[in-house]
């Protein structure tokens, strides 16, 4: 226990330092007084008595030193001295300090910012109870209500199986209606997640069945923003889709599901009597395993469910649910899309920071070389090597802390912009996606601090290792220009190679992403996006009856076509590229064998006649819709080429063939005649093959959809049409909401937004890396050539050809660059495995891209080497020789 008392003493000593000092002084003074008195009493004269007393005591100062040392506070004094010295050094050479500091600050700012995002999103636990018990069911296709109930009944290892989907709903406010994303969920979803409400309750069993009262649970954010955080909100009614719904609960602030953009939840309406129950696939399923369910049991359960589903339902080949079955951990299901890109960016920015460190270490080495004299003197005067090393590290850590402060400030100021630019969007994407749950917090400062100290230590390592490199004699040799330290020159070459490796990685990453984006952009859309704008219209079911709604939409489209600057207008139930959904079974009259679960699958869309022309979708056979195709007239359909190829692979002419889509609300339910074939237009996303799509005229549709998309083609800038359209809609009815107005080009861009954003960041990093690399190489070569100025001068004076000297300098300077490029390309090949998921249409080992990256670095390196070399040979030999 002695060490405990000792520790207590040390702490007391630290805090009561001054008192200890005073005590010590007083005690010694007293002692000397008494000793002096004794001597005087023995006959000495006072001055001699005092001297004798001092002599007998021994060295007073030495004694004080030793006592202080025994207090264990020596390190504090040393530290203070080191800090003062370090500050003097750093402030004494402002050029170096500023350059080094800013270089580090750049790296620290980027890394701290992205680390803070990673911490806020990926390292934080999900807002669910015991998330490792929650899984999402595999989803090559969405699930139908019937399938959900079936699985739910048969699940034994699961405590709960729940279903969810999302939808846009209108919220009626004071003067206007707004649209928000709602989660449409089974009553037990919150139980499956193990999430408890902040106010009120979540859903009760049975609230997701027909006849139940309309209830809704609000997210914390929505409660604050739309309802002012009213504590009495529970049991009040709000207007949802024009219908009153009772608020039964509010969720806590950190809760979200499945993403932060879903701002309220309402129950499903699972009705076995509804034809959509058995035919519409639109649900995702999650399940909560019982406590203690091990891996083996989970696998067994999965196999059982797959077998049961396969037996009960028959699936056509291209929509077979028994294939590729799996249970995805909820964390991956929710964060999987954002996790990958974020980790990639973190790695990239860390590489950049490493480059910055190497650059600064190189600078430090050069500086140490200049201070060798001073260091040698101090070593000769007895400073232990450990002390010198500590001083050096103090200097670099202080530099690091300064850089960290600047970096943290820069990152904090630009945090919001960075979050907005990161690939955090969500598929339903009206807002910031996962960026909404991020905010500036402690993690940024903590990250910056750790990085500051870490980089300070890292940067100091190299010069410290060179400290003991040679004895004082070498450094103190006569003549002001000592022989350059070859060891440090070698180390600098290693640094250059390392920097180049990192730069190659970053540059090749940027090139690959850029080419990916180019590939994505060049995908055949099948329609003309330039000049087109998409207007999302929503109306609540309580605000307008079904038939009235359809009429309203069509008349609005007609009036919109008359607006100035509008060349054409059309309606479509789901916007191409952006909106998925609305897929289900199709029956073919000439293939009566393909029925029930073996019926083929297709997407279907309701459109007005003006749609095809407005979007610029070409017709390859037959005709499109006309004004005559309405209720009462024969039911007609237009299909796309993919539909023809999927349904009649033998190549029959589809015109005149009859089909029947099982879309709910699709006309009379009679056989529909195919009258035209369109070119393949991107209907769902931009990647992968175009799926079969079936178009039906709006006028023959009886579905009571609550939303539609109005597409307009303008002669000028499509964004200018936003204002006029909004006024038009508002004028015609105040209960219809215009959710958003988006130029079609932006819609397409949003599809590839993840790749675009990655390209942006990697491009930025690559540019900075290139800059750092060039500066690094230039600095190193310039320094080493500068050392050789005398040598060059002599050789030129003796008749050497300047060109040869330049070439030799360039050669020796480029060697590390060459090594770096080779190793860098090798490293890129190794890392390629992890990057392939972010690329489209291009392999991560694409030789052109890697070659381009390598080439750029080589050129930059050569240029950075050549300039100082050339400059050195221009020096007047006489001046070089005289230079001291």
């Amino acid at each position, binding site marked *: 226990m*002695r060490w405990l008392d000792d520790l207590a003493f040390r702490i007391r000593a630290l805090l009561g330092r001054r008192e200890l000092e005073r*005590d010590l002084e007083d005690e010694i003074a*007293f*002692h000397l007084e008494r*000793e002096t008195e004794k001597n005087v009493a023995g006959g000495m004269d006072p001055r001699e008595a005092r001297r004798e007393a001092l002599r007998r005591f021994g060295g007073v100062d*030495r*004694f004080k030193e*030793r*006592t202080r040392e*025994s207090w264990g506070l020596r390190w504090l004094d040393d530290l203070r001295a080191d800090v003062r010295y370090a500050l003097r050094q750093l402030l004494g050479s402002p050029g170096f300090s500023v350059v080094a500091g800013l270089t580090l600050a750049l790296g620290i700012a980027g890394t701290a910012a992205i680390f803070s995002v990673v911490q806020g999103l990926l390292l934080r636990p999900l807002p669910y109870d015991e998330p490792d018990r929650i899984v999402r069911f595999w989803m090559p296709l969405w699930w139908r209500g019937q399938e959900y109930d079936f699985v739910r009944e048969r699940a034994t290892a699961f405590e709960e199986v729940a279903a969810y989907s999302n939808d846009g709903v209108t919220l009626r406010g004071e003067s206007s209606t707004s649209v928000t994303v709602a989660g449409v969920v089974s009553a037990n979803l919150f139980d499956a997640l193990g999430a408890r409400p902040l106010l009120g309750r979540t859903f009760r069993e049975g609230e997701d069945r027909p006849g139940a009262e309309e209830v809704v649970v609000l997210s914390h954010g929505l409660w604050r923003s739309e309802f002012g955080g009213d504590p009495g909100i529970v049991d009040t009614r709000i207007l949802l889709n024009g219908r009153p719904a009772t608020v039964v609960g509010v969720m806590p602030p950190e809760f979200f599901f499945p993403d932060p953009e879903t701002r309220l939840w309402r129950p499903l309406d699972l009705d076995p009597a509804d034809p959509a129950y058995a035919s519409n696939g639109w649900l995702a399923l999650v399940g909560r395993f019982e406590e203690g369910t091990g891996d083996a049991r989970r696998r067994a359960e999965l196999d059982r469910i797959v077998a049961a589903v396969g037996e009960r339902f028959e699936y056509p080949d291209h929509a077979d649910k028994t294939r590729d079955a799996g249970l995805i951990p909820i964390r991956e299901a929710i964060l999987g899309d954002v996790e990958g890109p974020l980790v990639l960016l973190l790695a990239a920015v860390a590489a950049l920071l490493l480059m910055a460190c190497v650059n600064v270490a190189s600078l430090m080495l050069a500086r140490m070389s200049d201070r060798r004299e001073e260091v040698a003197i101090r070593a000769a005067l007895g400073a232990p090597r450990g002390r010198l090393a500590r001083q050096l590290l103090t200097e670099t850590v202080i530099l690091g802390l300064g850089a960290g402060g600047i970096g943290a400030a820069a990152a904090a100021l630009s945090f919001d912009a960075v979050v907005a630019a990161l690939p955090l969007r969500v598929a339903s994407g009206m807002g910031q996606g996962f960026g909404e749950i991020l905010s500036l917090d402690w993690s940024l400062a903590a990250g910056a601090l750790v990085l500051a100290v870490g980089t300070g230590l890292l940067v100091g390592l190299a010069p410290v290792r060179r400290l003991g490199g040679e004895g004082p004699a070498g450094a103190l040799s006569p003549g002001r220009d000592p022989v350059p330290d070859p060891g440090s020159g070698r180390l600098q070459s290693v640094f250059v190679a390392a920097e180049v490796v990192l730069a190659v990685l970053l540059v090749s990453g940027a090139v690959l992403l850029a080419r990916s984006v180019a590939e994505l952009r060049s995908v055949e859309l099948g329609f003309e996006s330039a000049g087109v704008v998409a207007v999302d219209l929503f109306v609540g079911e309580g605000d307008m009856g079904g038939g009235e709604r359809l009429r309203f939409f069509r008349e609005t489209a007609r009036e919109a076509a008359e607006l100035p600057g509008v060349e054409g207008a059309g309606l479509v139930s789901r916007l191409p590229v952006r909106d998925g959904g609305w897929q289900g079974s199709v029956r073919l009259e000439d293939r009566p064998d393909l029925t029930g679960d073996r019926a083929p699958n297709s997407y279907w869309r309701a459109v007005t006649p003006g749609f095809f022309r407005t979007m610029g979708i070409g017709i390859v056979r037959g005709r499109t819709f006309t004004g005559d195709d309405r209720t009462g007239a024969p039911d007609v359909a237009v299909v796309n080429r993919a539909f023809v190829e999927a349904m009649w692979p033998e190549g029959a002419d589809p015109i005149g063939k009859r089909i029947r889509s099982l879309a709910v609300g699709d006309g009379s339910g009679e056989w529909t005649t195919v009258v035209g074939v369109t070119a393949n237009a991107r209907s769902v996303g931009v990647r992968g093959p175009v799926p079969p799509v079936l178009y039906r005229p709006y006028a023959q549709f009886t579905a009571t959809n609550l939303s539609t998309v109005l597409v307009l083609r303008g002669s000028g800038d499509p964004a200018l049409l936003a204002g006029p359209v909004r006024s038009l809609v508002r004028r015609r009815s105040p209960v219809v909401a215009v959710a958003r107005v988006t130029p079609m080009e932006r819609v397409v861009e949003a599809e590839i937004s993840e790749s675009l954003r990655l390209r942006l960041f990697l491009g930025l990093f690559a540019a900075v890396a290139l800059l750092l690399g060039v500066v690094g190489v230039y600095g190193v070569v310039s320094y080493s050539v500068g050392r050789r100025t005398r040598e060059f001068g002599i050789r030129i004076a003796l008749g050497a050809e300047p060109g040869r000297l330049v070439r030799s300098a360039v050669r020796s300077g480029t060697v590390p660059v060459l090594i770096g490029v080779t190793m860098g390309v090798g490293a890129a090949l190794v890392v390629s495995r992890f990057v392939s998921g972010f690329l489209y249409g291009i392999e991560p080992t694409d030789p052109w891209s890697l070659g381009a990256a390598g080439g750029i670095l080589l050129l930059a390196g050569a240029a950075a080497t050549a300039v100082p070399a050339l400059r050195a040979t221009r020096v007047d030999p006489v001046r070089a020789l005289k230079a001291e």
Partner: protein
Amino acid sequence: MSKSRPDMIKGTLDMLILKVLSLEPMHGWGISERIQRMSDDVLEVNQGSLYPALHRLARRGWIGSGWDVTENNRRAKYYRLTPAGEAALAKERDHWRELSWAVDRVMAAEGA
């Protein structure tokens, strides 16, 4: 050990200090004088080692310290023995006895 001999062994000084303090609390200078007097001037305390020893003993908790006023009304730092110190003194004394007995035995041996 006389004045011409080198320093006392560190452990011995500690023991002597503890002994002096077991008689009465004392300040540093007083302890040095006391040891000298009690040993009839044979033992002269190296004053450079005295205070480090005192601080060491205080750190160990064997002696405690406090500021007080001398008979001449001067402020001085007094040391006193703690209970732990008393026990330590007894142990040191036993140890010393053992040691000196052993040394005596070796020195008393006749030629063989």
